[in-house]
């Protein structure tokens, strides 16, 4: 797997990972805004609540796929490093939380939709922590 990732990124694993993580972080901020519109916390004349929620879901699916790819790349090349404690824990929890959130969204039988906003905020914060402890460091301090 490590060889495959190295081949795929032409040896620039860290750079590709930083770009992917930054894209996910930027999308997470946008997702927060879309959710705020969807739940009526923020009113925009040009975006209705259902449209915002549909967009939120479509972009969320893409972000989830990107997060899984980034996580697999990270684990296969770097593993659980000693100095990456917070990053590894936040990354693992964010993926777990995303899976739970997606299950709640997709399942109509589970009547726990009220958990979605706090879960969404938790996912956003965890994404930001994961980004800040890897890509943020990398961008500010260099490789």
């Amino acid at each position: 797997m490590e060889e495959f990732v190295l081949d795929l990124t032409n040896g620039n694993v860290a750079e590709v990972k930083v770009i992917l993580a930054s894209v996910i972080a930027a999308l997470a901020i946008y997702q927060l805004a879309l959710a705020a519109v969807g739940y009526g916390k923020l009113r925009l004349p040009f975006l209705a609540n259902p449209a915002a929620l549909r967009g939120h879901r479509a972009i969320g699916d893409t972000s989830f796929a990107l997060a899984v790819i980034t996580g697999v790349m990270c684990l296969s090349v770097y593993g659980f490093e000693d100095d990456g404690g917070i990053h590894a824990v936040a990354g693992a929890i964010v993926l777990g939380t995303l899976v739970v959130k997606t299950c709640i969204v997709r399942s109509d039988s589970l009547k726990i939709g009220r958990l979605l906003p706090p879960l969404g905020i938790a996912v956003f914060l965890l994404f930001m922590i994961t980004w800040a402890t890897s890509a943020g460091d990398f961008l500010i301090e260099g490789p």
Partner: protein
Amino acid sequence: MSHERMNDERTHWPQIIGSIVVALAIVAVAILITTAKFGSTSSAKIQAREDRIDLQEERAKDRQDALEERLKASEDRREEASE
């Protein structure tokens, strides 16, 4: 799917597409900002340097070939003149 929900989705299509287009723009800006921070990647630099060296070697070889041809031609001419 109920008729109400289908109608709702139809009327909101432009807004849904608009929100996705905005997301794509955000992705493009994020990629531009991060890649600008890196500059060209190390492999790209190595590739560019190798291409430059290849080009220089090719030009040197061409010059050498041209020089050899000129020398051979002048030798031929000298031989013809001596004959």
